[in-house]
């Protein structure tokens, strides 16, 4: 069986090191937080100026001054800290953030990322912190469906959408498999409900299938 969105989030969460400083991108990556038990000691960074971000706020906890990068109200657990935007992005750009998890339109076989703009006429470009995150975090995990709705692969030889960052993705998590972006190519780490050989027939890139 291919993975559900919740199972995919749990799979990403499983691979986040204990005690890591992590930024979860807007949208689906946010779900990873639901699978990080407190004893893992993972510290969440939100680029609008907070480390040690808590879960989504409910009821009386909602405070318009306390939101995440998706502008969703969150909570302030013990140990949380606030800082301004230049410090927040220094944490990324300066290589202090261990992992970020981002969504994507496309990832290329060498790890180029396209996730901010479709480039379509009339589309309003909005990059937010995606370019800073892509080149800043020590490891960039992408979480996406492997194919578009019409069946076109999103793991591609070359991105056709405008790029967010060059050679920045380290790993791609999809409902059908987890892929490592390596110097020599894309390695299949595990598959879900499909064999690596079947996967190869549906993708336009050469997959490395055995551990060296």
């Amino acid at each position, binding site marked *: 069986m291919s993975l559900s969105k919740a199972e995919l989030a749990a799979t990403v969460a499983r691979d986040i090191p204990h005690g890591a400083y992590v930024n979860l991108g807007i949208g689906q990556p946010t779900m990873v937080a639901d699978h990080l038990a407190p004893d893992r000691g993972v510290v969440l960074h939100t680029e609008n100026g907070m480390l040690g971000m808590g879960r989504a706020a409910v009821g009386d906890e909602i405070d318009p*001054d306390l939101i995440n990068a998706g502008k969703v109200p969150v909570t302030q657990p013990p140990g949380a800290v606030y800082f301004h*935007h230049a410090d927040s992005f220094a944490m990324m750009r300066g290589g202090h953030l261990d992992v970020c998890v981002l969504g994507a339109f496309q990832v290329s076989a060498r790890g180029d990322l396209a996730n901010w703009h479709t480039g379509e006429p009339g589309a309003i470009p909005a990059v937010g912190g995606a370019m800073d995150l892509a080149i800043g975090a020590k490891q960039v995990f992408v979480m996406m469906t492997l194919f578009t709705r019409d069946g076109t692969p999103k793991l591609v030889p070359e991105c056709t959408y405008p790029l967010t960052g060059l050679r920045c993705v380290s790993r791609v998590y999809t409902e059908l498999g987890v892929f490592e972006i390596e110097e020599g190519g894309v390695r299949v780490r595990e598959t879900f409900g499909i064999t690596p050989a079947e996967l190869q027939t549906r993708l336009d890139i050469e997959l490395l299938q055995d551990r060296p």
Partner: protein
Amino acid sequence: MAGFYDSADAAVAGITDGSTILVGGFGSAGQPVELIDALRRLGARDLTVVSNNAGNGDFGLAALLTAGQVRKMVCSFPRQSDSWVFDELYRAGKIELEVVPQGNLAERMRAAGAGIGAFFGPTGVGTPLAEGKEQRTIDGRQYVLEYPIRGDIALIKAHRSDRMGNLVYRKTARNFGPVMATAATTTVVQVGEIVPTGDLDPEAVVTPGIFVDRVVEIR
């Protein structure tokens, strides 16, 4: 030395047509809505506004856009679920847009406030947002030359000020405030409360009063 004003209208007086205005806030958190409303009433036009977003709903920055006072937005993330005012103006060709990666937006203002002439940053290399910019390889890594963003005016929101103009902020409403305060010729701050000098813990002050020109209390 910071001056203290009785109203938002008095605090924004003198802002001229064609000014570049740095506007604090991330979405509505930290957005200095009352100062923006006063700027709208003042009627200054042909403005360039530098802010992370391009307005939410119909209030604050969005209302300033509706009034037709903004010629150009410089921001990282104009498109949001509630950015219908900007979206319509943009699609109608009635407003210019410069998209800047969020970290570059912050760092370019930080550079302005710190007297840095320009800097090489790694963000955006190989992307459309680095096209036409000078690049350099330093220690094997590619960087893009980025210039400071200076404001004539900064409009920001803080939690408290003392009578020296020293500021503390509240939670994630801090966001761009401290950086913008350093990067403008005149920094105007709306605060929830003005407290007597000596009441703020000097170790906890985020923006020292040297960066603050005008303060108004908006409760």
